């Protein structure tokens, strides 16, 4: 009786919520085959301003914990990561040895003495772009941090990345991975109208490689050779 319309309304609203939150999966392809690039960063920039229902963005950002890039087992972790402009970045050293982390990249140029097991104060990034990180003591240590000026970003797991709660509209999709496009980002246009899958054809077959491992160290070896 009078309960039915309410139930129907609840079910309908649940359905509509669910249908809105159904994620968009963007996957890389080449000649009809899926291409895998774990860790590759993808972000979407709205071509027209979109009203984002996130409440007070500034307050939300300030409350955000810092983006962590650790030094662990004489390597950076994560190898590739992404964060939004205005984030704080922190470089805790989990190793029992000192690191000397630096970047000469345009968005953030710095050097940090990282004595063993030390977590320095976070650093804020105010500019978008690619930050390449190195360690002056351990040559092989390299990591990449993409700083993006968009709330819609993610990293590929296998061959695809999912975007949740993406408002309908036109976007420019951007992609970066050190082995796919070392110098510049790949771009494509995306018109999102609620579709579940978007195929992004790559200009060539994707060969993405994992992070270089720290060289094995014997317990009696002096590392300065």
């Amino acid at each position, binding site marked *: 009786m009078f309960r039915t319309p309410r139930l129907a309304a609840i079910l309908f609203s649940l359905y509509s919520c669910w249908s809105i939150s159904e994620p968009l999966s963007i996957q890389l392809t080449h000649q009809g085959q899926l291409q895998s690039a774990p860790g590759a960063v993808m972000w979407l920039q709205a071509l027209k301003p979109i009203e984002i229902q996130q409440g007070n963005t500034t307050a939300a950002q300030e409350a955000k914990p810092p983006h962590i890039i650790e030094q662990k087992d004489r390597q950076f972790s994560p190898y590739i990561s992404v964060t939004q402009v205005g984030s704080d970045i922190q470089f805790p050293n989990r190793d029992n040895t000192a690191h000397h982390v630096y970047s000469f990249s345009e968005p953030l140029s710095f050097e940090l003495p990282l*004595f063993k097991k030390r977590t320095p104060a976070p650093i804020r990034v105010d500019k978008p772009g690619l930050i390449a990180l190195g360690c002056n003591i351990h040559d092989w240590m390299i990591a990449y941090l993409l700083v993006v000026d968009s709330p819609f970003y993610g990293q590929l797991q296998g061959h695809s990345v999912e975007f949740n709660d993406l408002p309908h509209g036109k976007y420019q999709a951007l992609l970066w991975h050190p082995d796919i496009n070392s110098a510049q980002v790949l771009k494509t246009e995306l018109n999102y109208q609620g579709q579940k899958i978007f195929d992004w054809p790559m200009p060539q077959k994707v060969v993405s*490689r994992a992070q270089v491992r720290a060289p094995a160290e*014997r317990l009696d070896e002096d590392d300065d050779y």
Partner: protein
Amino acid sequence: MPIKPYKSNNNKNAPWRASWPHTFKGLCLALSGMLAGAANASGDRPSNLSQRISAKGYIDFRWQHFRGNESWLDSGTGHSRFDRSHNNRPLLADFATEIKADLKAGSQIITQIHAYPEQNAGLEITELYWQYRPLHLSAMRSRWRVGFFYPKLSIENRGSVWSSLYNINYSAINSWIAEELRTFGVEGLWSWKIDKPVYGKAPLTLNLTTAAFAYNDPTGAILAWKGWSNHDLQSGIDNELPFSAPPGVAAADNSQASNFQSFREIDDRPGAYIGIGLSRKKSFKVEWFHYDNQAEDTAFENGHYAWHTTFDHISAHYFLTKELEAFGQYLRGRTSMGNGFVNNRFESAFIAIAKNQGPHRLTARFERAVIDDLDDTVLDDNNEAGNSFNLNYSYYLAPHWKFSGEYQQRRSRQARRSYRQVPNYAKEEQLSFSARYYF
């Protein structure tokens, strides 16, 4: 033959002379003042001291059986560190540590210390220096070292606290470096990556090393008057090595002090070395060094002569496979003292092959070491020729232990043994077992 008089040609009244400390205590004080200044000037945010200071090293427990002449360390004519008097009993062979203090990014004070309770009671400070690696925008890297340190010549002694990675007893070249050779000065190293980066492959690197140093004027004396050895004893900053003067030397007007100090400044002339090398980590390394202490070989002070010692050194290391490595060092040089009293040419080379398999490593080393006496001083015949062979097996028990078994054999002919009523020819054999705890 009359012994030629030796006189120092130093100008003792030179005004700058007063500010140039000739003893190690003075020098250590000056150095520690400098290091303290560097620490204060670091300007970095305060951090926990324990995060800035780290120490690593090892304790070496040894058992050995030796057959041959009595050790030179006990004034014998043998060339090992341990002799029959150390046979068949547990020995605390070495307590070694390297302490690093991080001052700021890329700036450290490093010291290496050994204790040899079987040989002497004190501590041997074998290195003490400030190291700085500035950050460069280009692919070039540089490293500065200021203080007292080993020149990085050795392929073999690149282990913790300058130990040999492959053997218990070092090769003749590296044993000599441990005895007599150290840089007390400033060294710069520049490295350029000269090929395009390839994934998973270390870059091809061109290395240029140069240094200016002092306090290495007596270098060459132990080599001339004791000869080549195979051992693992490293001289400290203020070390005194026992020395048995050949009769011709004992009769000289200016008699050599019985306790020999390797690291002294006698003539106030700095020495220098330069090295050029090419390397790819875990693939290969070749390097050439030219060393000249530029000593004024007529200078004499406080029982120590200045020896003009110069040599060329070539090292090569090649990984035949990931597990199989071949390496060697070659050294050829001259040393002279006392206006022609001693004039020696010395030469040594070794070649080694090491097979690594998981926690196991097997190393075989063959070497030859020669001294040609070119002067005609009587009762100071420094001629020597010897061959040695070393076979070592090591087992790594992670994370702390390394166990080694080693057979070392050395056959040598030395003219000066006859002054001690010992046959010129000697065969020395040593079987050693070592258990090292790394911390």
